[in-house]
């Protein structure tokens, strides 16, 4: 790193740091204070690791978002009573005065099919119920906490995705991953602190789901793509060899150095270091993305095939990323929005994700990484215990389930959460929580807590206001902490 960079900081960086650490730059921004901070080396680089508010349980996060929302009632929240009453009109209070996305006439109840493929199994020592659709996950039940009572406030996909991931149902706020990266920095300076991996189409919220909102754009997620350049513009243009690239960067930096010695703007020193990092990324990212180096046992465990685009490959990449100190890895897997034919489609999607996710937990555990890595299975909402029989245009379909915001299940593993624990309870038909509801803000507060951050103190001042991921809400769900 260039010596000048150590001495000086980027204006913005300093400013943001000061705001965050509670030194207002209001009427009394003190130049001497800036320099003191600089001298103490608190944040020469916006992504350098930051101290936590209290000891962290988890260092990194692998956040798996099942886009469209899986049918939690057929996977985690077993409801024999619902099965029994399948076909009955739902209780009036499930329908009247409620806003539903697709259902427009009082619907009937829809239980999980009475079929061995869909049967629930008592798993692990805790005996928690997991569907036979997730046979691999059943084997790691003792490593996970299932929360059955997550509630959200939005029932359309894009707003609910934004609400879950940014704490606000409209655009403009920073995403969870960027809050975390802003709060904690990154352990690996050769890779972005927040990496996004996608299978299927991009979710409705678009890049805002991993955007940085009003925090600096260095904290936004960087998508690692499975086709083409893994990071945009990573590879050299045709005819530029690695040797040429090195020489070109040397020349750029050499000329920048000449100019720096004239105008002395610290920003030039920063740019010099960024070109060095870009060069390092040209090697480190392809190396990271190349899963050929993994053993056959690992490939068998995950069901990975090098060179393919698959959720399994992304799970393995997630492990490789946290292994290298990437702070926040977010997987999006599209295709879970089953308004029709839920019992045909759910087994197919489960098959794609079950083995790799269980493999990821086992592999992390094997490597001693699970303790410090929080793995989250989540979605923007759940699905109704009522049947949906028509699609968006009003045509009849095989039974599916509509969007459901009152209660749904997510699970977490590793990173300081209990294993083999079920939190909260929904009513016998799975409509609403009856015990221990967990609001999306509570969930986010808890994730930040596991990372050693007080969600009320992780703030960013914008437009005169201290913004938080959890707005003015959120309680840490202490019962799930190990």
């Amino acid at each position, binding site marked *: 790193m260039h010596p000048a960079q150590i001495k000086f900081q980027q204006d913005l960086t300093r400013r943001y740091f000061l705001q965050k650490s509670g030194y207002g730059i209001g009427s*009394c921004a*003190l*130049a001497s204070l800036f320099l003191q901070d600089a001298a103490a080396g608190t944040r020469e680089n916006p992504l350098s690791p930051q101290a936590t508010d209290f000891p962290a349980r988890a260092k990194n996060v692998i956040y798996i978002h099942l886009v469209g929302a899986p049918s939690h009632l057929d996977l985690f929240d077993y409801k024999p009573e619902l099965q029994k009453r399948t076909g009955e009109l739902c209780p009036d209070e499930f329908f009247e005065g409620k806003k539903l996305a697709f259902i427009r006439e009082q619907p009937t109840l829809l239980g999980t099919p009475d079929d061995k493929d869909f049967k629930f199994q008592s798993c692990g020592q805790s005996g928690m119920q997991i569907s036979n659709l997730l046979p691999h996950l059943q084997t790691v039940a003792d490593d996970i906490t299932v929360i059955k009572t997550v509630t959200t406030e939005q029932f359309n996909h894009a707003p609910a995705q934004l609400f879950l991931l940014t704490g606000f149902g409209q655009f403009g706020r920073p995403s969870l991953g960027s809050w975390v990266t802003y709060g904690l920095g990154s352990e690996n300076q050769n890779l972005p602190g927040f990496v996004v991996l996608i299978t299927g189409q991009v979710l409705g919220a678009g890049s805002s789901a991993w955007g940085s909102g009003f925090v600096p754009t260095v904290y936004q997620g960087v998508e690692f793509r499975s086709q083409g350049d893994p990071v945009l513009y990573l590879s050299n243009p045709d005819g530029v060899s690695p040797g040429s690239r090195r020489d070109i960067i040397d020349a750029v930096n050499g000329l920048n150095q000449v100019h720096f010695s004239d105008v002395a703007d610290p920003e030039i020193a920063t740019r010099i270091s960024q070109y060095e990092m870009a060069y390092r990324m040209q090697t480190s990212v392809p190396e990271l993305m190349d899963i050929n180096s993994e053993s056959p046992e690992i490939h068998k465990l995950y069901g990975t095939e090098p060179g393919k685009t698959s959720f399994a490959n992304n799970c393995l990449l997630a492990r490789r990323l946290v292994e290298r100190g990437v702070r926040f890895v977010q997987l999006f897997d599209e295709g879970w929005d089953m308004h029709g034919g839920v019992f045909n489609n759910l087994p197919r999607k489960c098959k794609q994700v079950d083995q790799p996710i269980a493999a990821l937990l086992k592999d992390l555990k094997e490597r001693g990484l699970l303790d410090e890595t929080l793995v989250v299975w989540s979605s923007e909402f759940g699905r109704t215990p009522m049947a949906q029989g028509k699609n968006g245009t009003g045509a009849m379909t095989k039974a599916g389930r509509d969007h459901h915001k009152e209660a749904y299940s997510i699970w977490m593993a590793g990173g300081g959460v209990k294993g083999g624990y079920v939190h909260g309870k929904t009513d016998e038909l799975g409509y609403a929580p009856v015990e221990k509801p967990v609001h999306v803000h509570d969930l986010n507060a808890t994730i930040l807590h596991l990372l050693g951050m007080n969600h009320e103190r992780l703030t960013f001042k914008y437009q005169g206001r201290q913004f938080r991921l959890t707005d003015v809400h959120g309680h840490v769900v202490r019962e799930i902490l190990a």
Partner: protein
Amino acid sequence: MKIVFKTARLQSGKSLQVLLGLLVAALGSLAFSPSAFAGSVDFEKHVQPILRQHCYRCHGETDDKGGLRLSRREAAFGTGDSGEPIINVGKPEESLLIHRIADADYGDVMPLDGEALSSQQIEILKRWIAEGAHWPDSAAVSRHWAYEPIARPDLPGVKHEGWIRTPVDHFILSRLDEEGLEPAPDQNRASWLRRVSLALIGLPPSPEEVDQFVNDNSADAEREVVDRLLASPRFGEKWAVGWLDLARYADSNGFQADQLRDSWAYRDWVISAYNQNKPFDEFVIEQLAGDLLPEATADQRIATGFHRTVTCNVEAGVHPEENRVNQVFDRVNTTGTVFMGTSMECAQCHDHKYDPFSQTDYYQLFAYFNNTPLEVKQTAGVTYDFYGPSMELPMEPEEADRRSELQAELAELKQQRDQRLKAADADYEAWLTDLRGKTEETDWQPVNVVDFKTTGGETWRELEDRSILITGKVPHTTTYTATVKSDLPRVTALRIEALTHPEIAGNGPGRGDPVRSNFILSEFIVTKTGGERDQKIELTAAAADYSQTRWEVPKAIDGDPSTGWAIGQEFQKPHWARFQLLKPISLAEDEQLQIEMVQNYGRGRTIGCFRLSAYSGDPLLLDVPEDLQKLAGNKKRSKAEEKKLRDHFNAADLQLARIDRQVKAVEKKLNALAPPTTLVMVEMDEPRKTCVLNRGDYLSPGKEVSPAIPALFQPGAGEYPENRLGFARWLVSNENPLLARVTVNRWWAELFGQGLVVTTEDFGSQGEPPTHPELLDWLASELRENDWSMKHVLREIVLSSTFRQSSRFTPELLERDPKNLLYARGPRFRLKAEVVRDNALAISGLLSDKMAGPPVMPYQPDGIWRSIGRNQPKWVTAKDEDRFRRGVYIVWKRDAPYTSLVSFDAPDRTACVPQRPRTNTPLQALTLLNDPAYAEMALGLTLRMLKESTDDSDHSRINRGFEIAVARDARPKEVEVLYGLLQSERQRVKEDPKLVEQRTGIKLPGFPEMDVNQQEAAAWFAVANVLLNLDETVTQE
């Protein structure tokens, strides 16, 4: 803590100006010369600003939590609940004020709702108390500075009048004088030209412009340059970008189903408004309420696109009203930020905590914007589409004429259609009666077969039911010819039934295969015989109970013997086919019909048993679905049912069909002529009722409110209509001090990289106070007093000595003022995303100057546009000059904005962006180094270096590269670096000739001719790549 004090109203004795001046002095001394603290602490200079920022929002004029108003002297010197004095004069360690802000033992550290005070601030308060806590009577509880009227300040005196170029310099220099700082020397002229060009038009000067300017010694040289730049059409393209960020202008809906929609005419309006120097007050009025202006022009209506840029969720199952309310929220919040520098959002749910805006204020503003229609439309079930008011863009006169001709034609046709429909009314009624009376079957009658022949040698016999059973030989192919008579008075249709029979192998109806008992009726030909001459009967409207795929029944009357009607898969079942006669016939006594059934498929796929029937009824009665027949029988029918019947009837009306064909043709022509549209605001005829929404929830309306300006500004306010136009007129009036301040501050920020109020987005109490409040007010009055002329204000700024200073950092300045808040040096900051690109395009010689029109799609990597949603738009990379157009014209899809701009901090424009961050990342390096668009630009620069240099020497060419890229000569050291690279690249290219092809092949069609030595170009490509990546190249310095 409870304090009971009857406080007297304090008088506001001091003028704001004095106060502001003091504030500035406080800031200056605190921020830049800590040594100033050797002196005593002053209440107004040092203490009050701290209280105002941290305490007054809960313990001030608007709120007195715990009964405490720290804004009042009597209260501040009172005691808390415990009896402990709040301010114990001379004893900070025994003052509750200090305890509560610094010591957690006394409870949660204040302020509870925000960041803690800094140790410096606490130190100031302590020292003030220790020094006697002098709180002068004269200290006013003034309003926050930003809400005070704008007063035009006098120009402050300065030590060196000679440095002054424009009045701006007075304010900067007098401040520097106070600080004991010297301004930096002038930037050299070439660099100033580059700075001012990038600042005003976002493009670098050409080497020729640099030469000309540097050699122009006239006193007006700078002014002429500035006038040229201000008059350039490129000016609007540069300044529009920041405005479009504020206006959250994009080309798509956002959310799921992020489809494209047209409002680019609004983007062009902004560019053109800047270019015309439209007075800023009009600029504001037209965007907020152009539609409400008397006799609004097309342009004024287009301008209202400003508030039609809001995101819109059209995913299935969305609730339109919720969507609409969210859009109005966005309009109110954006209006607050853009025109008032105020974040209104807090007041959506409750009174603003920091700034003097109540929840009622919020919904009174909301009421101005609440009278627009829903913007999603239900298309089916719970499926919605984006819609909402749009207008057609004005057309060329010739096209407009042609269009009105066609429209007239269409109107005429529609009239004809109506007439035809009316004329057919009687027929329709008759048809209904017929439908009621009989079923179709009653009008079918088997014909009398008077003669029958086959060509395949089969035998046959007629059965009781008048069918003909074929027996005997099964030939490969055959033709049956039946001569038939009918008793019917007229014949309108003929039918052949292919029947099963136990005597046919496998029961039939086909003869050739007992299992797959298919037949193929190749042609069905009817001739009237027995008259003067035989007459071929034209058949039409073939129908059948069933047809095999690719063997549909119309093929039996298509004249092609290789095609035909077959019934594959539906074996062993009877089938029928029916053919209408184009013209009904009557058979005279001696006339017959000769019906040929050609069956030449082969392998005995022939009919085993058939019956022929004739139909005498109205063809309209054929195939009437059962439900319609039933409807016809009903005494009462709903409108929808009546329509269903009439539609069925109309479908068979040949005259109507002819008119409809013409209508379609004209409509097609009209569609081709249809002008593009753009989204605009319209006011509904019936205004909506507006209520305060409790907690911002649209399902929880509270008290009703009417449109009104914020209460803060109501005293002494003039009369304005209670609509958007009235509100806009108030915004631009002298009653609103915010607009002019916020606006000039933004322009300053655009030129200097930061505002005089650093928080350009927040002029409230939590924002930064201005570094130069008097300059801010001077600029604001200058704007107002010069007919809101933006170009006038910009000219005053860019011609100043302040703007002309060298941007070199010195160790002293780095220490004293690292952020350049005092402007003792010139601005230096990285260019905006769009300017990074435009600048590189200009340097490469590729930049297109084409303006306006639909958004363009230059190169971007595959797979960026792949979000969920219907009719997902496709990225089609432009193959023409469009790919070299300025960034402002690039399509902006909110779910996935243009990647190379995103690398440089371009937002997704899903919400109002008052200020982009300015980061410095490795992704930026990768973009400039490797993005194929930049690689092509590097090739463009290569070409220029090789062709434009004064001679062929490497030195000249390198120097030319510097002239083009950064408007200056190369330093010897720089030449050395690039020459070294050039030599090693020459070697590489020589050793590996395919590099030549690869590097020079980066270009796409439309690239200028590469009429240079290709091998040299390949080596120079690396040099060009370097020049486009320099920090200096992407920096305005």
